């Protein structure tokens, strides 16, 4: 029972941060049809920025509770700055090119940003344990958990609800759905599609940064952070269906729980299981489990 609860909670926590990152990835793909490899960099930048400033603020004697503000602020700043720059300087000029070439361009950006992190923050790992220490731990069902880790699940739920609300209950959501459905028709109806693209990319980047910023206190923030997370979120997005928020949620639950199960019961297959699921889904349902199959356009 205790093992089961541990697996469940570990899995949920893992799913939560995967979901936050993948939601950004899937929104960008859904609207702009860009498979954004440098999403991993947004994550890494978010993690580094929040870890750095949490450490700095704590040295300056600020109350640790500020850490949460720092997390939110770093996600927004990273998303705004990187997202805006990348979209305006690089991607804007590539929309007419081949889909695959855009993927390659974002891969180039990913490599560049990885090294800019090293230049900006150095190679030593950062530890920003303060927010985690502040929240202490709690005993439930015979096991002790960090409260911080549990709040992660709440944050993910908030992101999910926020996305759902934005897409289904606001004017902005309607515009987004119109652009997703038919970009040209959207332009004809007077939608400022370039603006929608820029805002979407920034929004996705903020989510990527938020995933990194929120997870930072629980890990040692070290080089190579983004490399692992990007393939994992690819797996999530592919399993759930590219471009679907619901899909990202289900995909991250499947991947997160399976991986937690593997870590506890059969550590040898930890990575194998994630990508095996991804491959199987691609083979039998390439459009993902939850994306509706599209009619072929000729």
């Amino acid at each position, binding site marked *: 029972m205790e093992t089961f609860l541990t697996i469940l909670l570990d899995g949920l926590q893992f799913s939560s941060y995967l979901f936050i990152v993948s939601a950004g990835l899937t929104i960008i793909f859904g609207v702009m049809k860009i*498979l954004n490899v440098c999403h991993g960099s947004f994550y890494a930048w978010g993690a580094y920025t929040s870890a750095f400033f949490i450490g700095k603020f704590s040295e300056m004697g600020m109350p640790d509770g500020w850490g949460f503000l720092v997390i939110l602020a770093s996600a927004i700043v990273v998303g705004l700055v990187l997202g805006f720059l990348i979209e305006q300087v*690089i991607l804007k*000029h590539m929309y007419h090119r*081949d*889909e*695959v*070439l855009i*993927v*390659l*361009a974002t*891969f*180039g*950006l*990913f*490599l*560049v*940003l*990885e*090294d*800019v992190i*090293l*230049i900006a923050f150095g*190679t030593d790992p950062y530890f920003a344990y303060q927010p985690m220490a502040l929240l202490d731990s709690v005993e439930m069902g015979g096991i002790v958990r960090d409260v911080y880790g549990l709040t992660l699940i709440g944050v993910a739920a908030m992101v999910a609800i926020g996305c759902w609300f934005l897409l289904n209950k606001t004017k902005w959501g309607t515009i987004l759905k119109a652009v997703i459905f038919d970009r040209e028709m959207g332009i004809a109806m007077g939608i400022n599609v370039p603006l929608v693209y820029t805002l979407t990319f920034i929004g996705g980047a903020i989510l990527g940064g938020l995933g990194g910023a929120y997870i930072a206190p629980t890990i040692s923030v070290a080089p190579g952070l983004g*490399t692992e997370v990007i*393939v994992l979120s*690819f*797996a999530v997005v*592919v399993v759930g269906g590219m471009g679907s928020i619901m899909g990202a949620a289900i995909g991250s639950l499947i991947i997160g729980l399976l991986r937690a199960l593997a870590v506890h019961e059969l*550590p*040898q*297959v*930890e*990575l*194998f*299981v*994630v*990508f*095996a699921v*991804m*491959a199987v889904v*691609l*083979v039998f349902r*390439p459009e993902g489990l939850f994306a509706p199959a599209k009619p072929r356009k000729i």
Partner: protein
Amino acid sequence: MLRDNTSKVVFIGGILIIAFGFFAPNWIVNQLMFGFSRALAILGLLVLWRTGLVSFGHAFYFGLGAYTVAILDIQLGVTDVFLRLFGGACLAGLAGFLVGFIMRNYRDIFFAMLNTAISMVLYGIIVKTESLGSTDGFAISLPTIFGVAPETKYPLFVVITVIAMVSALLVNFYLKTTVGRLTTPIRDNEIRVEYLGFSVAHAIHLKYTMSAILAGGAGALMAMSLGQVDPDSMINWTVSGELVFITILSGPGNVIAPFIGSLVFEVLRTYAFELAPHLWQLIVGGTFLTIIFFLPGGIWSLIVKFGRNKS
């Protein structure tokens, strides 16, 4: 087979490079070995790239070839360079043939992603399996050639150059056959190709298997010239990215391009590590973006341009 200009250049260039290697210092020979080994994989990716397919997972076949060499060496004590190469290329080719049945139905990013998934499955298995060397990998003994254990790396270099030469000639020959000529048409319009009476699926399957054999051979040669294998430098998705990078850098214009591209890559890497060890990825990424933006035909298009101005 040696009638067109490309074949002549490959043939003569190969012989000149072998002769040059005899007098060249060790580090240059090493660079050439790494470059030519990797170029084999790029040859395969070039064929796919001309068809409009980019695989973000060919490190699967690269790693399969490399690990076959490691297993042959450590478990079975096979030292002969040709047996090892044959083993690596065959296993990768077999895997490519089997995976190809699925892969031939995929295009665009789905093709790229399914390849990534498959390569990461292998990565996941090897990283977590002690008997396969886990994250440390294996050291590989220097291969013997026709039963003779060479003193220096020069004989291995000759073997690699000859293999590279032969592969380039074969791929060049293939591109001139009817099936080979179906590369660009498939990218442009599959339905028309089908109307002409050819099976697109079969053509892509053949190309995919070819690229797998070449990538496997490349991995096997790379493992032998490096003297070691490990998952992060052989199978991780970043390796696949590197291979794609060199393909774009070389340009799809000609079978000679991969060799030039790979050498440029090796030189870039060596100097980047020496001058600015932390800037390596920045330089690669920056070059990548520059090429995509300003030189869509890769280095080869520069050579073509230069040649035209002269004549």
